[in-house]
């Protein structure tokens, strides 16, 4: 068993701090609504999603270093991307990725873990949002504010999934 690297821990900590910053900026926006504040929330959310994606990518690079470097033909090794492999659509798409194929052969236990957290599984839909938002951050993240009808409020607690999509408002 390997210890979680300090760079991964640092990114996770930064992610938690940035979540608090987003919340503070949301409160500031509610005190004094402005387009600038909404942009600031978007920018800070961008930091959060990037902070949270990095540990996944760092972990994958460690896997490549430990298990695949020097063990694959140079041509196959060059085709590997050092990013966390994911598919938002299907297992077939996920299994098609070169890194996934090599991991399945050499480390079936890690393959199983990677497969089990793919965003095409309902419980991990958030991971697809995370990866997508991290890519979208390069352009712009648009934030909206919505009032909650008190009748819908109980749903927030009861069904975590109801927070997604537009059923909440």
């Amino acid at each position: 068993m390997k210890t979680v690297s300090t760079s991964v821990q640092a990114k996770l900590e930064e992610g938690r701090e940035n979540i608090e910053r987003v919340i503070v900026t949301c409160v500031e926006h509610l005190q004094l609504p402005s387009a600038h504040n909404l942009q600031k929330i978007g920018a800070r959310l961008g930091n959060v999603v990037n902070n949270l994606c990095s540990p996944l990518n760092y972990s994958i690079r460690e896997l490549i270093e430990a298990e695949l470097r020097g063990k694959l033909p140079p041509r196959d090794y060059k085709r590997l991307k050092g990013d966390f492999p994911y598919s938002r659509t299907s297992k077939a798409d996920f299994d098609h990725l070169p890194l996934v194929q090599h991991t399945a052969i050499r480390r079936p236990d890690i393959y199983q873990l990677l497969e089990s957290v793919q965003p095409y599984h309902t419980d991990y839909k958030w991971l697809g949002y995370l990866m997508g938002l991290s890519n979208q951050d390069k352009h712009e993240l648009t934030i909206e504010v919505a009032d909650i009808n008190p009748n819908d409020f109980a749903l927030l607690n009861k069904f975590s999934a109801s927070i997604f999509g537009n059923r909440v408002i």
Partner: protein
Amino acid sequence: MSYEGSEPTIASTPCFVRPYQAFATENRGWVLFLVNFEDERIGLVKFMELANAGIQKIVSDFYQLL
């Protein structure tokens, strides 16, 4: 009578109420922030907290195998 951990907290609005992952305001009631992503609107705070906990779990499981 009070119970441990159940004492009321008084805060000025607007403020963030963590158990509900929503913001309490004086004029607008409860408020949520939503992120536009493709054709979906994602609850901002719920998403951030879910993703934060989820990533920690994945990374921890991953390193246990590595």
